[in-house]
């Protein structure tokens, strides 16, 4: 379980997050939505202690990750898989080496076992043949997916995805959405998905948290998103739906709405 308690964060004079409270239950998938620049990525980085709150705290399994020694924080972080917004692939390595990296450093797997696992992960993100390519030789969307493969390689308990489907075509987006759902169902991974894409939200998330004006404006089950009296949320959701007039994504929406 991840708990965010009364979190404040600003960069210099720029206030980004104010009194954010959020509880993420084990096994659930929560979507963090909000406009560009609303602090979604900043909130996500707090969950693994990459940023320190100015005030408030973050608890992972009841441990305040701001208070513990660095060594213990590192152990907690090993239970997380993080997909960064820009992918954050190591550009000195090939895709294969990127995905093998966590396996080499955190497991005692044999080279053969590592190779198999890497190929398995590449298959999961539908990129079987990019292993030997460096990140600079990949498209943006491909980089994102290799990064996703790297994040899931160790089968972490917690997955944090920062815009996993942005920049992908609708069909690949659906594949990734399915992968995220599959991970959370089969391995009961607790997932935090930062996204702009309401269709993803409806198809994969149990709950959504809407960041607006530095605050966590609304948190609730995805099925309650429609028909809220909340005008700001309504506008955000509607704007998002008008933008995507794509039939493929529309199916995803329908699937998500019972």
């Amino acid at each position, binding site marked *: 379980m991840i708990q965010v308690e009364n979190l404040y964060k600003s*960069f210099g004079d720029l206030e980004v997050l104010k009194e954010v409270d959020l509880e993420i239950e084990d096994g659930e998938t929560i979507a963090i939505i909000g406009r560009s620049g609303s602090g979604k990525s900043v909130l996500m*980085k707090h969950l*693994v202690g*990459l940023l*320190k709150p100015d005030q408030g705290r973050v608890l992972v399994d009841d441990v305040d990750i701001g208070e513990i020694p*660095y*060594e213990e924080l*590192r*152990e*907690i*972080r*090993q239970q*997380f898989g*993080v997909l*960064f*917004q*820009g992918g*954050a*692939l*190591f*550009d*000195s390595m090939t895709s294969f080496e990127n995905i093998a*990296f*966590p396996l080499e*450093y*955190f497991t005692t797997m044999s080279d053969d076992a590592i190779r198999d696992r890497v190929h398995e992960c590449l298959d999961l993100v539908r990129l079987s043949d990019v292993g030997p390519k460096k990140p600079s030789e990949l498209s943006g969307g491909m980089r994102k997916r290799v990064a996703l493969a790297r994040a899931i390689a160790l089968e972490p308990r917690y997955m944090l995805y920062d815009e996993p489907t942005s920049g992908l075509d609708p069909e690949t987006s659906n594949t990734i959405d399915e992968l995220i759902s599959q991970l959370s169902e089969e391995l009961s991974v607790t997932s935090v998905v930062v996204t702009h894409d309401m269709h993803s939200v409806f198809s994969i998330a149990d709950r959504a948290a809407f960041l607006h004006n530095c605050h966590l404006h609304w948190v609730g089950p995805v099925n309650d998103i429609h028909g809220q009296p909340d005008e700001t949320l309504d506008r955000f959701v509607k704007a998002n739906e008008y933008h995507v007039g794509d039939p493929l994504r529309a199916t995803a929406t329908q699937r998500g709405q019972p």
Partner: protein
Amino acid sequence: MHACPFSRDLTLNDPRPVADRLLAPFYTLGRYILLLTRAFTSLDEVRTYWGNLVTQMVRIGIDSLPITALAAAFSGAVLTVQTAYQLETSFIPNTIIGSIVVPSMMLELAAVITGFILAGRVGARIAAELGTMRVSEQIDALEAMGLNSISFLILPRVLAGIIMFPVLYVAACLIGIGGGVLIGSAGGFLSAQEFIDGARQFFKPFDPFFGLIKSFTFGFIITSVACYKGYYTSGGAEGVGDSTTEAAVQSCVFILIADLLLAVTLL
């Protein structure tokens, strides 16, 4: 526990009060020392660093050999020609040239030339590499996996520096002296025998030892300053550019200071 990676150091239109700005160099020094302490403590198994160390030793050492050799050969040759020129009119035996050139090479030139060239070549490279890793969140990715990014990135680089610089120094000495011998015999003003005799005559074992201490120190300065600049880069491509320049320029300045300090304390 991390020093905040986002705060820029002293800039021209720094809004901080004067007292803070005066204290900034101490803040920087403190952060630098903390970073290095962190790099050499809380370590994982050796295998975590081994691969990186070998890569860095190749990059810093072997890949720098050609340019170091070139610079050493030329400065050895120039030093020999010029020493011969300065002594031309006097009735001093030719062997003196060797006994001037060789110690100069060993005491100062070989170490400082390697230092300066590598401040640009190695220092700038490390700062650019780590700076890019910082701004593209690769360092965050390492941390998020549960690796100690500081020791993972910095330890192999600094170690490679202090191991390979002395090696490069020895190479620079030998090649520099070789350059002197060659130009002397090619120009016909100094035979190899005279050169070597002169070098032997006043040879002090402390000279190469002192040079080794220097190169060790310079290796540490260049790699650690570059790691510091690179690791705490912020502000995108421009920030990487700033770090790269600062790493090269500041390590040159620190090399000069260290050179003087070592000469004053050890000679």
